């Protein structure tokens, strides 16, 4: 019972931060969505110690574990697109798959290469210092 109570309070905290993120983005007319503002807000609060990790961790971990679920009802909306996809589906799929693979490759490879180069340089520098 205590755990349910704790979980609900934590969930409420996350909902409130999300709403504040929405209001902030709307108030300043930012082109950034409220949930991204919410991430930044929560991060700053954790950083400043206004919120402690254990005060939201239970609900956060549960939500992140089921993050995929929340996209399912949105994806079901694809059923309204029948016509377009019957007509152009295959071509569109080819474009989306190819460009996604290209992006994944470049984003991953470049990041990994830069990380490895930096680490190599640090080792070299270290040797010199010795």
């Amino acid at each position: 019972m205590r755990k349910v109570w704790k979980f609900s309070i934590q969930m409420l905290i996350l909902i409130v931060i999300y709403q504040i993120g929405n209001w902030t983005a709307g108030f300043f007319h930012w082109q950034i969505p409220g949930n991204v503002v919410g991430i930044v807000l929560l991060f700053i609060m954790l950083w400043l110690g206004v919120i402690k990790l254990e005060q939201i961790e239970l609900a956060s971990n549960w939500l992140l574990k089921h993050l995929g679920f929340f996209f399912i009802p949105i994806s079901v909306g694809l059923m309204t697109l029948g016509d377009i996809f019957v007509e152009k589906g295959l071509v569109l799929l080819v474009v989306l798959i190819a460009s996604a693979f290209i992006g994944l490759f470049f984003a991953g490879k470049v990041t990994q290469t830069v990380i490895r180069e930096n680490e190599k340089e640090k080792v070299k520098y270290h040797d010199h210092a010795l």
Partner: protein
Amino acid sequence: MITLYSILITVSVYLFVRFLAKKYSSPLTSPVFLSTIMIITFLVVSNISYGEYMSAKKIMTYLLGPSTVALAVPIYKNRDLFAKYFGAAFVGLSIGIVTTITSAILLAKWLNLSDMFIRALTVKSVTVPVATEIGRIIDGNISLIAAYVIITGMIGAMFGARILNLFKINHPFARGLAIGTIAHGIGTAEAVKEGEVQGAVAGAAMGIAAVLTSVIIPYIIDFII
């Protein structure tokens, strides 16, 4: 009644697919992909339109916002890692966004797709709520954009890890970054399962990619199409 039925179907299909995915790991058992197909089938068979499903959708996606906010937790836990790899992340993210959008547009032009189809491609890698917002600004077809974004997310969730393995991209930070940049939230949901670092980086990359794209695309769209 239809709402209750829709929720019941959605939740049970999700739980079933999760169970299935644990037993048989394959692109076909990727939760968002398989659940969506099964639910659409159920709805069609039960003669429920998407309009009727909407009220259930609203209830079930209520926690999507707070869930996205919860990504701050793994980001905070891995903050030293972010500080350490800041430069690499920035370069990788920018190149990832540019290559995926450019290749999509070039390919679409080569395949003779019309302006409506090409325009929507510029935001295909951005998380759903942001993509539709940018869509309004660049005068794009919103439902087409939503479809691109969701399908791109599914592609990333289904094949992302395999593509990265194929090219020996095994650094957890680079893996999370690639998935989050290209496949936003749906990819991030998979990255979270791969590991805490991957999940945290994917979540952060999704946010930063969304911000970068929304700041840049509206200004350059007329030059690149």
